[in-house]
């Protein structure tokens, strides 16, 4: 059993390392995801300038914008995790050599790390550009980590589904947004608490529940999705 786990870890780590190696070689995902987020940030601040919101009600508005920004960036970038394998037909080789569960975990770890990297780029920028003060930092960190994990987990599972459908990123958004919306609203709630200074928001429990159930659903469903 413990040997099984060590084998499984090796495989998941191999997938994770492979993804990052391809990533660093080409720089697609990170460069472009970051740039995408930043450009969107600019679009948003321009429209906000038009609206004059930023000044009036920052504490309720800005958390929403932050998470919508992250959501769009993620739905632009994550599908590649699997769509890419199917399109370049490397999926066959992978299907014949990796156990689905370790593959899923490797991909999930990779997606999560990309989302975290994105958050590290975007959040400080967002907070300074929008003049948003955070009262309880740990709560914000919790929201970013748990919310980011949920985005990665839900996104990875849906990406696996649409990759098999040999379909576009549009279909990804259609399938993923309803799955990710509950998560989004929970994360927004918690971020608001962080701004307001509430040390232990109630939405945290639900967010963890959501993360947990999506992970379990992913582990159960992925093998069936991945293999014919």
């Amino acid at each position, binding site marked *: 059993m413990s040997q099984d786990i060590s084998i499984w870890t090796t495989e998941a780590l191999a997938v994770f390392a*492979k993804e990052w190696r391809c990533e660093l070689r080409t720089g697609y995902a990170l460069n472009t995801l970051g740039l995408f987020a930043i450009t969107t940030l600019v679009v948003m601040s321009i429209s906000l300038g038009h609206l004059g919101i930023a000044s009036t009600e920052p504490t309720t508005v800005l958390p929403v914008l932050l998470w919508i920004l992250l959501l769009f960036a993620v739905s632009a970038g994550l599908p590649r995790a699997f769509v890419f394998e199917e399109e*370049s037909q490397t999926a*066959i*080789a992978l*299907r014949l*050599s990796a156990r689905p569960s370790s593959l899923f975990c490797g991909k999930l770890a990779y997606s999560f790390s990309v989302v975290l990297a994105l958050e590290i780029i975007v959040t400080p920028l967002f907070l300074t550009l929008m003049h948003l003060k955070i009262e309880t930092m740990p709560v914000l960190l919790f929201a970013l980590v748990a919310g980011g994990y949920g985005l990665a987990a839900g996104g990875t599972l849906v990406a696996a589904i649409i990759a098999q459908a040999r379909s576009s990123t549009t279909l990804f958004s259609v399938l993923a947004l309803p799955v990710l919306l509950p998560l989004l609203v929970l994360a927004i709630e918690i971020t608001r608490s962080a701004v307001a200074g509430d040390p232990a928001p109630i939405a945290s429990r639900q967010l963890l529940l959501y993360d947990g159930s999506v992970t379990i659903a992913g582990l159960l469903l992925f093998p069936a999705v991945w*293999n014919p």
Partner: protein
Amino acid sequence: MALQSPVSLSFQGLYRNFGRLAVLRDISGSVSAGEILLVTGANGSGKSTLLKCLAGLLAPDLGSIKYWEVGQEFTTAERRLRLGYAAPDLSFYDELTAEENLDFFARMRRCPTQRPRELLDRVDLPGGRMGHALSSGMRQRLRWCWALLHRPRLLLLDEPFQNLDEPGCRAATQLLEEHLANGAAVVANPGALDLPYVTRHLNLDN
């Protein structure tokens, strides 16, 4: 069913439709260690489809596929990870070199770390070339390496010699011969090549 043979594959009454097109209809056959099952047929007769079903990459609509190694039977999921497969639709990562590609799969399959290098030398492939920069013959060599990486007992080969030049064909035939020492192979479209040990034939034309 040759239970104590090092390896044995048998399939019975396979059916597979694509939409309303019946491609495989009641196909049966078997192969065991030291044998080649040669699958022949016109273009579009279903050779690749059959090999995909055997590899577990496509589920047949009906029929059973049984796979043993040394008396132990394996499920589809296990068979998928144990066999070696080479076909034109097998591709590798464009951003990794040939050797890195093999290293990655060697880690996934828990092979000795020097195995990729060994195989690259056998087929004479420059390991440092990037995946997207390989010529078609080099790609085919890489497919051979990939299929043999974990020393599988069963090899499924679809058009295994296409694109290969003279030395490439020789290297590949020799690898196949070594494999047959105690493994089995199913081969479709070997081209104009003489195969060692062809012992069974399966014709899909009707």
